[in-house]
């Protein structure tokens, strides 16, 4: 049989049928005991990473004020962006009617940080990340297709601009399956933010399963109320009473299973058991009381405030330890159309120390080697000013033609600065990395083949990297 199932779907079918005899949960235990995942459709190549975290900066951070240092702009303050640079490329209708496109150099100081190689420029807004550039691969040449938030962030996290397609985490869940018996495979965390409060929306499609079975969708862990929806027993019902109740339920379901012989009933019994297990494992997960003062300090003053980006980074690390496959942390408020100098420092303060802490904490626990961490927004921001330009303040519009992100851990070569933009930070001049390439690289790091990880839908092989345009694994970023 084994040489007869080259594609994932057959493996699932295979497992499903085997599972019928043993009971899915029992099968899962067997596989887990051997260090294997269960219910993934692929037999992944041995990748560097087993799990991943995506730090998603919704709203599009300004690369020009954080990573993409353009010293030459200082003397071009308020000069027009040369038409030879813009080349009539499309703009959003927020600035396309602007009379002028005056250049707005960053007011923030940059410092060249020692990254063990040629050095990496990082702005004063990111002191903590600046200190760990030797662990990061900074990509200054990311680019994407869409020019507005909704389609662009949908593209970033599902590979399509329109709704309806599986998210990155759903693909990982589908391809690799679960590594634990009592926590979800794919977890989503939303963070509070301190910059501009009228922030871009998120959509459940960003962690949805699209055309994949819905069990692959992300589970949004909440910072208020039950961390997982409906996790808590109703008031007055003790865990012992619940246990008794579930035992009776299982006995009666087992009788139904004997009578009807429908294998789904056994699966249901197993799922109720997992639900019961989660009622213990999830509170244990979100309770950070056991963390040392030193660890909490590492993540910064917000680490103990539920729902902050810092608290979520700490949770993400705890999940990595407990076999969660993929965590997606959202941080909103990055849409600085105006007031960059008022807003951006707050946004950076939210994420700088916690992101750096996450890398260091994973590293010292020996987890960084097989945990891939990605940091990015959905596109970049323009070098020219939107609205009023002064020496002290300015705004920046959407810019899909280049933006900066970074990767770390799980098979990524540390201390790399990849790609280059022109003197205006407007166009990419070297090593462009499309969002599709980023997707391909992520899948590759996790041992999946971006070309073959596919599901049939509407007659098509749906893939994260799409079907039309090429996508390449960015080998230069790999160890």
């Amino acid at each position, binding site marked *: 049989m084994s040489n007869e199932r080259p594609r994932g*779907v057959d493996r699932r079918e295979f497992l499903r*049928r085997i599972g*019928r005899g043993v009971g899915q949960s029992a099968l899962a235990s067997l596989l887990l005991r051997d260090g294997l995942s269960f219910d993934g459709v692929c037999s992944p190549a041995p990748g560097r990473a087993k799990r991943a975290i995506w730090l998603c900066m919704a709203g599009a951070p300004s690369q020009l004020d954080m990573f993409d240092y353009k010293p030459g702009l200082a003397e071009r303050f308020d000069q027009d962006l040369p038409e030879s640079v813009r080349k009539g490329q499309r703009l*959003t*209708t*927020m600035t396309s009617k602007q009379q002028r496109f005056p250049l707005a150099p960053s007011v923030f100081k940059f410092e060249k940080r020692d990254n063990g190689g040629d050095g990496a420029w990082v702005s004063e807004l990111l002191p903590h990340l600046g200190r760990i550039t030797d662990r990061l691969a900074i990509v200054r040449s990311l680019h994407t297709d869409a*020019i*507005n938030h909704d389609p662009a962030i949908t593209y970033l996290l599902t590979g399509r601009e*329109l*709704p*309806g397609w599986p998210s990155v985490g759903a693909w990982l869940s589908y391809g690799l399956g679960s590594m634990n018996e009592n926590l979800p495979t794919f977890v989503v965390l*939303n963070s509070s933010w301190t910059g501009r409060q*009228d*922030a871009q*929306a*998120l*959509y*459940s*499609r960003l962690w949805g399963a699209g055309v994949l079975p*819905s069990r692959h969708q992300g*589970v*949004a862990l*909440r910072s*208020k*109320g039950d961390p997982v*929806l*409906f996790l*808590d027993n*109703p*008031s*007055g*019902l003790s865990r012992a*009473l619940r246990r008794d*109740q579930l035992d*009776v*339920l299982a*006995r*009666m*379901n087992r009788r*139904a*299973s004997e*009578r*009807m*012989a*429908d*294998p*789904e009933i056994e699966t*249901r019994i197993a*799922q*109720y058991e997992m*639900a019961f297990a*989660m*009622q213990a494992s999830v509170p244990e997960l979100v309770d950070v009381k056991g963390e040392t003062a030193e660890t909490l300090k590492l993540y910064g003053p917000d680490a103990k405030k539920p729902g902050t980006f810092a608290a979520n980074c700490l949770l993400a690390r705890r999940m990595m330890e407990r076999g969660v496959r993929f965590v997606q942390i959202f941080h909103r408020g990055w849409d600085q159309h105006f007031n960059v100098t008022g807003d951006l420092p707050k946004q950076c303060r939210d994420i700088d120390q916690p992101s750096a802490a996450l890398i260091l904490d994973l590293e010292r626990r020996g987890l960084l080697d097989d945990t891939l961490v990605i940091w990015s927004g959905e596109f970049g921001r323009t070098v020219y000013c939107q*609205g009023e330009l002064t020496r002290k303040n300015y705004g920046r*519009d*959407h810019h899909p033609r280049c933006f900066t992100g970074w990767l770390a851990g799980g098979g990524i070569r540390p201390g790399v600065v990849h790609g280059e933009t022109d003197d205006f930070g407007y166009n990419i001049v070297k090593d462009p990395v499309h969002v599709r390439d980023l997707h391909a690289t992520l899948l590759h790091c996790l041992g999946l083949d971006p070309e*073959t990880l596919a599901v049939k839908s*509407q*007659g*098509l092989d749906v893939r994260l990297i799409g079907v039309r345009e090429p996508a390449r694994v960015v080998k230069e970023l790999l160890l």
Partner: protein
Amino acid sequence: MVRSLLFYVLLPVAILARVASCQQAEAVRSLLSEHCYRCHGPDVQESDLRLDKRERVLDGDIVVPGDPASSELVRRILTDDPDDRMPPAEAHNPLLDAEKKLIEQWVADGAPWAEHWAFLPVRKEALPSVSRPQWCRQPWDFFVLARLEKEGLTPSPQAPAAILLRRVTLDLLGLPPTQEAVRRFEADPSDAAYAAYVDRLLADPRYGEHRARFWLDVARYADTHGLHFDNYREIWPYRDWVVRAFNANLPYDRFIVEQLAGDLLDRPSVDQRIASGFNRLHVTTNEGGSIEEEVRFRNVLDRTNTMATAFMGLTAGCAVCHDHKFDPLTQEEYYGLFAFFEGMAGAALDGNMASPPPAMRAPTPAQRRERRRLEEAREMIEACAWKIVDALSYREPHLRASALSVAPTRRTWWNDAPPEDAELHGDGDTIWHFEPGPPGPERLGALRLARRAARDALAQDFFLTPKHGRRLEIGDRLEVWVYLDPDDPPQTIQLQFHGKTWEHRARWGAKPAHGAGAKGPGDVKEGPRPVAGRWTRLVLDPVNLGFRPGDTIDGVAFTQVGGRVFWDAPALLTHGPLGELERTSLRLWAMRAREDPRLPKEIRAILALPQEAWNAEQETALEAYYKRHVWGQARLPLAPLDERLAEIKAQIDRLEAEIPHTLVSEELAEPPATHVRLRGRYDRLGKQVTRSTPAFLPPFPKGARRDRLGLAQWLTDPGHPLTARVAVNRFWQELFGVGLVETSEDFGNQGALPSHPALLDALAARFVASGWNVKALIRSIVLSSTYRQSSVVRPELASRDPANRLLARGPRYRLDAETLRDQALLLGGLLSPHLGGAPVKPPQPEGLWKAVAYVGSNTMVFEADTDPEKRHRRSLYTFWKRTAPAPQLALLDAPSREECRVRRERTNTPLQALMLLNDPQFLEAARGLGDLTARQPGGTVENRALWLLRRALCSPPSDENVRDLANYVRRTLESFRRDEEAARRLLESAPPPLPASGVPVPERAAWMMAASIVLNLDPLLSKE
């Protein structure tokens, strides 16, 4: 596709050999499509090889019928040489050994060719002969049994009466049966009794609700726009239309026509226009910076793709960028279909509005009846009033016009200090700041309201006096004094008045301020900015700002963009209400009434003329109006009638305010030309195309209009090979869980082959011949022996046909999200019977909307309905926010409704378990069901446990289950008796109010938990 092949591949070879040759040909072509067409198909022909056309396949030595050894195709798929092997390794799409054998065998058998089955006309299928015709109750049974006999299988026995009754009730109503119905059917399980029961279900209005629920996934119905703001969208009258259409058994062809083109029908009815909202259900956006052409393109794509998937099972979207890879649909043909939808009126962006035009007011049938009743009453009373008026004669008294020329009264809102008794607001650090400012006319006193704003920034002070608004009378004016600092003049100044809303603005200056882009009185441009450095008196006619006499103003806002501005002495200049003089003399009244916008148009036209110019006819008309509505002497006799009319008018106003809007389709007078979009890019125009349908499908009907109506007629032509097949397949899927074609969204080359091709065609043919009669179709299926089989998985079926595609047993699968919730509410005695209406918000955990919403979206804050009737409405009516659907739906595989979906997944997850155990709504249902159980008379614990299981599952429970449940209740009761406080808290964990019950608290709590067990039993969560 893969599944469908597994279906063949997994069958033992002996059975495979018996697959009819046309099915063999189909299976082979499916394989070629799956593995070869990407490079050798309709779109691309590498090495000039094309494998989707018979003549090209049999060309040369590619395939030599009957001679696999000489056939290049066979050689290339069997070879071990990696350079020669097809498909090549880099395609990552190898053939399985069994699949290779199938192709080889097909060549050996003479390579019979079959055009793709779904594009060929529906065949009239004769009933196959079977050895046990007595088993067959409906024609469909012959097809199923014939196949089973061929496979050497036997059908399953009929399901037990109670299980069958529950199954058919769940399938037709989406709800479990009543106890009474179960008892009656168990007493008389005859065919006649069953058929009579089915007919009752088909006549039940809840039937339409349940059918509609499936269709709303296809139609992508939701209550928000779906993108960016994801604001409320009002289109629920469409949802109610779907319910009505199914209940009225609207023929399916009409169902298609009215949705695609209801607006284009001759004098369309309200319902037909509502139905045309189908084309408007796609997601929309209003994101700032969006490029309108791109958004419009996407909207039209969605309409086109939805039409193709919903009615034809075609994955037309594959041809947006290039010719379809697998089906014979060219890119140009795609845009031929696209063109039908490109002529629709309406802006690309939704404006974040609830009803972006074109929209209509859509009264429900009940509202329409009520309005007619009120209008008839009004007409009757009006007729009486006119009789009285006609009997009175009017004579103009001798009064001087000068009697009226009194200067208006100036009622100043404030001067030198903020208005008294007002709420003061502003958006700066110092609001309502008064200072001496520049000198001005004495009337302005000593102090002015002063403000400064940064360049381009808006600044505003405003007040509200909700308790004492000022009533506007005919001819009134508004007056405000303003002074612009010549050293720092503002770019724009603006006054805004509050009536019922703030949508009454006047601005001076070009820079937009508040209400920018608003049409009409929301942003009236009064003129250029007043000259700076001197006091200017601004005078406004409130009628121009959207006010009418009788309205009240209770707030004014003083706004500026940039600069420094001084405001002073805002006032209302009023003549007061109509006085004695106007009520005595028509001519005096006429002088003032000229400014009354409320008068009928023809009266205003007369009043606009000089009084000397009135002719006799005009005088008569004026006199009649005056007597009826103004003249003092007529008031007394008319008063009782006018009072009654005022009441009716208030009732009509209330009714009108309740009438919802709904989005509809409308056609542009001059539709734009449609172009192929190169590589699917909205801005890369290729060849111009006209509205046309694909060549591989039947021709466009002769004489039909080239518009959406013609397209709908083309789809519903009885000769169309797809429409009826796709429809019957979906109805079959609703009843059996899987369609005869498993990929109900794809009937093309990449779709699954039908498990019973002849049955599918027989159903389709009968459906069309019956006049597309949906109820008749469903009735005939649920009356069949196939449907009535027991769903027990017999040992031989578990291995042979685990997915039950051969239909040797009845369907068994988990119920859909909506049915699960509705069933629980019904069993708990809570379900509201209310049909239709605005969407409702049953409780959900806090913060789910806020966690994702755009700040400023009107669906950011979720507020659950408090009215129990709304909380317990069927799930069909639950408010559907596309970016965060209710967890009770989303966790159980409901789609997001962001695009057309014709089937749902059925997953089985721990999160579902947690919800069914702990969601307060399910707990409330458990409490209700527990209360009902505890109150059963004459009960031992065992008897009550038995009642509970029987009530919920319908069939008689096993002794073991009764015993287990009874013992559980005893144990739990004991625990709750020890800790009555816990029991009370448990009872209160479900939403209030806690209904009164004569049963002691510990007992209630114990039965609540027992009911919760029952509501989580797999047989209850499943259709058996």
